[in-house]
């Protein structure tokens, strides 16, 4: 690093930096290869001695255990790879929902720390300090205990409208799928295309004539109206599967298990504290003069926020925000502690049943590596889009 003027011809002498570099690299590669060979040969030998079978062929065998919740039908005769798939889907479900919720809550709290109201400021500060200084595992355990212990039994479930909350989890009305919903969805798609087209047209007009049109509410209106029209055209189906209180359980409706709720709540509230700090530092990083200059140009406060402050704050916010998303996804692995069947928990069960530790842990690591890399690729793309444009 200190010397960039490498000699033109590699001299075969210890005094040549290039030569030394080659030797160092060979040593490093050699050490790594040796270490891997050492570990691998030990593992092979140990497995032979202990009679442990290896290989991924067990993935085709029937799993032999049931999974509490899964997004698609699964029973104990399904093969292992199916069980792993259920686990991956459960992980992704809680991670994606968690990322969306934590972004909303975290942003609200981060912005709340700039409130003119001292009470709101203080509460947001208290929230951040309280939630980020207690381990996530402990928070998950506490939420799970609250949801399973402190809530009433199913027969005396708390009820708000058609939503029930009890030891068995949360039960809510679920719309009954009909073809009309598909029309509604198609309407939304058409609305989205129309909305984008309107925005394009609006920009062109603005550049030609200087007339400013509503760039947010009109496209949103087009989007919503198109969706409602599509739904209404198909006869406006609005049947819900309402849950009803039976003798021993609550029947019908959609349900969320206490495990899922605990993991989601714990991850969301914990990560929101970190996201709030990220948002706060991002907004603070925009120089005050920027706001004043924008106001001097006659932009209203909404425009100042949207056109001046946010684009600059986002540059600072996005890289650490990506880290928080990745942390949330990785922390979802702690679900194993409260029995939510995520991929780690499934791998753990499979490991205990088949004894294939190497394979099970390799699958877990592969799943998380893929998710992490995919998330960071997406966020890097978004980051590049919002990065400063320099000539």
């Amino acid at each position: 690093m200190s010397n960039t003027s490498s000699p033109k011809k590699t001299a075969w002498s210890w005094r040549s930096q290039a030569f030394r570099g080659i030797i160092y690299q060979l040593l490093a590669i050699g050490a790594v290869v040796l270490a891997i060979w050492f570990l691998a040969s030990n593992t092979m030998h140990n497995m032979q001695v202990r009679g442990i079978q290896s290989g991924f062929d067990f993935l085709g065998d029937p799993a032999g255990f049931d999974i509490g919740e899964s997004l698609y039908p699964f029973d104990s005769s399904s093969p292992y790879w199916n069980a792993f798939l259920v686990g991956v889907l459960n992980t992704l479900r809680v991670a994606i929902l968690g990322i969306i919720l934590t972004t909303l809550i975290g942003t609200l709290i981060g912005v709340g720390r700039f409130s003119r109201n001292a009470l709101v400021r203080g509460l947001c500060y208290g929230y951040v300090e309280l939630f980020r200084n207690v381990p996530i595992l402990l928070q998950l355990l506490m939420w799970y205990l609250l949801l399973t212990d402190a809530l009433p039994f199913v027969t005396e479930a708390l009820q708000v409208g058609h939503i029930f909350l009890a030891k068995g989890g949360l039960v809510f009305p679920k719309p009954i799928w009909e073809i009309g919903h598909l029309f509604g969805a198609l309407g939304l798609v058409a609305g989205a295309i129309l909305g984008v087209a309107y925005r394009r047209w609006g920009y062109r007009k603005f550049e030609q004539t200087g007339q400013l049109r509503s760039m947010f509410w009109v496209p949103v209106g087009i989007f919503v109206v198109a969706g409602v029209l599509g739904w209404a055209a198909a006869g406006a189906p609005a049947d819900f599967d309402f849950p009803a209180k039976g003798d021993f359980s609550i029947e019908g409706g959609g349900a969320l298990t206490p495990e899922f709720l605990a993991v989601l709540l714990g991850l969301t509230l914990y990560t929101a504290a970190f996201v709030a700090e990220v948002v706060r530092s991002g907004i603070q990083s925009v120089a005050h003069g920027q706001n004043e200059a924008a106001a001097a140009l006659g932009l209203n406060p909404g425009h100042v926020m949207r056109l001046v402050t946010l684009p600059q704050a986002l540059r600072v916010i996005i890289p650490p925000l990506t880290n928080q998303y990745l942390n949330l996804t990785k922390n979802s692995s702690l679900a194993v502690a409260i029995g939510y069947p995520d991929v780690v928990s499934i791998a753990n069960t499979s490991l205990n049943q088949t004894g294939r530790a190497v394979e099970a842990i390799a699958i877990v690591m592969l799943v998380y590596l893929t998710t992490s890399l995919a998330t960071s690729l997406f966020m890097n793309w978004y980051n590049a889009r919002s990065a400063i444009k320099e000539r």
Partner: protein
Amino acid sequence: MAMNENTAQTFQPIAARKAPTATEGPVAWVRINLFGDWTTALMTLLVGAVLLWMLPQVLSWAVFRAAWAPDYEACRVDGVGACWGVVAEKYRIIVLGRYPFEEQWRPVVATSLLLFMLVGSCTRAFWKLWVLPAWVAALVIYFTLMYGNVLGLEKVETDRWGGLPLTILLASLSMMLAFPIAMVVALGRRSNLPAIRTVCTVYVELVRGVPLISVLFMASFMFPLFMPVGFSIDVLVRVIIGITLFAAAYMAEVIRGGLQAIPKGQIEAAATLGLSYWQTQRKIVLPQALAMVVPSIMNNFISLFKDTSLVTIVSLYELTGALSLALNSDANWRPFKIEGYLFIALIYFAFCFSMSRYSIWVEKQANKGRMR
């Protein structure tokens, strides 16, 4: 003008302006911060109402109706709030784990020594060279006290260590071991030699891509498979190795951030003076880079401290695990687990919050030179 004719008219001052509204003092603070304009006032009323409704209930549960005596019958009476008796009854198991009861003075003394060294090392008075031998001596005393088997101390196997001492040991020891690894890896990632750069990058990205829990599973299930037959290491050591390798990857990224912030001119100037690569790093780059990243390293340490709670999943009884140990087997006290959780949450909070305050102080110290 009319004034000249009417000589009898005396000078009439206009009415004095009202005194400017105070901008200091508690009344002014309340007016500006709580009732600045009508949205703020509305918000104050709303939030205040919710707080006024909730706080009495929380206080009544946690303080006024709480049962403080270590007596589980008293906790089961209807209308009793929090049962802090569970803490009064079980605090020794929660805080010290399964360490033999009569010997529990040993982890207390040893951990106090460790804490003294940790807190001391955070102050300016300790930032001297003699702190290194002092640390070595402290660690030797620590392990002698904890493990025993010499000087007439009873031997206590590591699987009986637990509670807060284990939490502090895991966090501080892994951090100390991770630091040199992280420094080498951070330098390696910025090296000119492609092979070394690749090895370091792959290591960092691989470790940062997987959750700590899978690293711990690996340390507890797969490590025995990796080693030659007949070679076995204590599970505590395996877990410390796992956490160290995990923490090192994160710390390496932090240190790399500091290295990147050093202007290139510094390195070029060092090269002009004829310093070698290692001399440049040791005398020019690292002192500046490390001073810059101390607050981030502190944050790393805080998250590591919290992450030690995961070792309970691989059956080491640190603070979180010790609580389950204390309450799961005791049907009388099991219903009051939430109070136990709140108690250890308070311990974690006290540690992490004071560390984050310290990190803010260090940041101010480090920036002093720039704030002339």
